[in-house]
């Protein structure tokens, strides 16, 4: 079936079965590999993208449901070629370990900050807790979001000058 999708501000026409998860359309039809496959069941958040500004699990979103929506992926998070402030914070804090979950983490955090520019720690944890990280980068994720949110992280990396 033919679909028109708007991804990162660009329109794409494609022909796929309507129940194909958006995840595989983004990755394999449009070559946007930054969105990851983790569980395929809405349980991990690795595949998180924005649909009309709302976080969505693309592994569990049939492409037909995404037609007409503004879709944003990690590749389109920052429109101007600069890194998004969260991405800068991720680099500064050295958040990623294996990195596989991090696109999803950043997309979830970006949605949080878009709606609440200065969340406290509890709000951050509540917003982020559906995104799994097997490497356990959670403390750095919190610190990175807090650094952008202007909060002061209590979390002190060892060896860093206090």
């Amino acid at each position: 079936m033919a679909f028109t999708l708007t991804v990162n501000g660009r329109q794409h026409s494609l022909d796929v079965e309507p129940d194909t998860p958006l995840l595989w359309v983004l990755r394999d039809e449009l070559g946007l590999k930054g969105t990851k496959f983790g569980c395929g069941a809405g349980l991990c958040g690795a595949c998180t993208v924005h649909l009309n500004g709302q976080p969505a699990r693309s592994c569990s979103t049939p492409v037909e449901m995404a037609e007409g929506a503004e879709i944003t992926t990690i590749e389109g998070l920052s429109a101007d070629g600069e890194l998004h402030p969260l991405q800068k914070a991720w680099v500064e804090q050295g958040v990623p370990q294996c990195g596989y979950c991090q696109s999803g983490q950043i997309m979830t955090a970006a949605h949080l900050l878009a709606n609440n520019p200065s969340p406290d720690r509890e709000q951050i944890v509540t917003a982020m807790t559906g995104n799994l990280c097997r490497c356990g980068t959670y403390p750095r994720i919190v610190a990175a979001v807090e650094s952008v949110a202007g909060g002061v992280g209590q979390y002190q990396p060892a060896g860093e000058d206090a």
Partner: protein
Amino acid sequence: MAMNRRDFLKVSTSASGGLLLALNLPGCASVQTGYEPETGEWKPNAWLELTRDNDIIFTLDRVEMGQGTYTGLTTLIAEELDVAPEAIRVEFAPVAPEYRNPLFGLQLTGGSTSVASSWQPLREAGASARLMLVMAAARVWRVEPGQCKTEGGYVRHPNGLDSMPYGKLVELADKEVIRGDVPLKPRSQWKYIGRQAGRLDAEAKSTGQAMYGIDVELPDMVYAVMTRSPRYGGLAVSFNRDQVRAMPGVLDAFITERGVAVVADRYWRARKAQEALAVEWDFSEAVGLSNPDVFKHYRQAAGDDPGEDERVDGDPEAVLEKAGTLVEAEYEQPYLAHATMEPMNATAWYRDGGMEVWAPTQAPDLGRIAAARHTDLSPDDVTIHTTFLGGGFGRRLTQDYIEEAALVAYRVKVPVKLIWSREEDTRHGFFRPAMLHRMAASLEDGQLTGWDHQIVGPQILDWYVRNAAPAQYPWAPKLLYGTLGRVGLMVEGIATPKDISAIEGAIGYPYAVPNVRVRHTHTDPGVPITWWRSVGYSHNGFAVETFMDELASQANEDPVSFRLKLLESEPRHRRVLERAAELAGWNQPVPEGRARGVALFKSFGTYVAQVVEASIEQGGIRVHKVTCSVDCGQVVNPRIVEDQMTGGIVFGLTAALNGEITLDGGEVQQSNFHDYRLLHMHQVPEMVVDIVDSEEPPTGVGEPGVPPVIPALGNALFALTGKRQRRLPLKA
């Protein structure tokens, strides 16, 4: 091929990580070094390439799976080359003898060995390249090399004015010959080692640009999925081939040694066709085990066979027999899955008599053997391209997923990517073995006088040898692979190093007890197993450190001072324990409703003590805080050490609170993250990591954070409730 027996069976000196096959693999092409006038590229050694255009490329031969080799090993070479790590481009190594891990004789990343094994060779590689560049510049300027300095990719003239970029010197440098040893920088001159530095791969991994195995894209690529026997060892007999082949997009469907493969033009179409599959299986050779059988089997074995003595000090039997107070306990640990965030996958392309494979693998040279296994190819015909790994934890030391992609590619002759679903990844993994531990100890007036630790369960070599033994004889016909595996097992401990995967951490029992016995009852229920982050330490840590806690409480002693008294001659153990206790406020009152527990465990040469503060709230265990002190010798990147500790703690807590793979009639009952649960952010405690400042040689950090947290939490729960938990996962 002339090669004597000693060459083959070079016994590795370190038994770190329980990875033990030290093999010499003939037959791989070596890395070409030297200067290439056409391209202006100079390779002073296997790891470095410097170009006329001032590019510096480092070939990373230990895979990056999150543990930080991409940053850490680059830092080592950058330090001696005297350039910023950020100025170096990192490429993943192909398979070549130069890139083998000297501790295993295989090109393998595991056992928390990367920094330790690369510490000397990589610094020497950087230093010798720098020296050759300096010698070349000195020759041009007619000055003494010793008077020249280097900085930021330039050689500086002694006059302080002139300088030449490395790129200008590469051709000349190639002609220089170093006589004698290459001096390494003294610690006082380090600019990058030990400095707080970020991760070189952080930006690629924060922008979706890092390429993992699952992201590989080739022209006209097709997709494959594999339906494996629900029980280990079952074989596909037949399936509804015509029906499946008629499904949209399906290109092929066939029975393989690994199950039924479905190949389609799109991944989702392959999955949908898979749903329509009806397979008839032959289970006559399959494992039909159910969970209670596993421990029944172990108990039976433990009674029938006292086990092989792995360590005996004094006369433990006699001492235990006439013990004043005899304390006994049994601990059970379940099978565990790795649950890497990136599911197993590999991409393969068979053409012109050769096979190319792209894969997230921890052991690319074993990947070649796996790819060749079910084809007419030899491992030499296989090229492996390693990508970033979305987690490894030991799972990707076993190459079954490469085997599958390759056997499909061999048939379809176009590039094919084979992806496992999460459910397949959970069910068809190779697990951390379930283990039983029987402990006994004697106390006389509060003094620990005897210790007997019986470990009951399989060893990993029995499974891994299938992968690794043929690597020893790559010219051997594949028909012999099975035989080679059996021979490999027969010579284990005699001609090859002993597999210590079941006993590591138990034989190294550090406490000063005069009578110690550690023994292993070797028995295997037939469930596939492999290395899992911290391997034998993961279960021995729980048994040893929980039992120590039981003994402290029997002796009416504080768990920290009970341990310290037995560590008089173990200064590094003592130090981390004292520091963790101090930092955690061990002697201060615990907040209302909480309790603390402690554990101390050395693994992979690294000493870690952890204090856990926990409570039980609304019927669930809540971990509030973990304080960790680590001594891993010289630190290359303190931030990565800290991340590996906190990551290890989260990994260990996940096992302690949730981790369990269970079997029913040979079928794994868990499938996805709803029933094989990982820790969520809201469950993660506050974590404090203290790193001991040390000039000892560096040791690993990827795994040692895992073992102590599991008993430390159990011990905290005992302090809280007075009830001892002897089986994992822990219950509220």
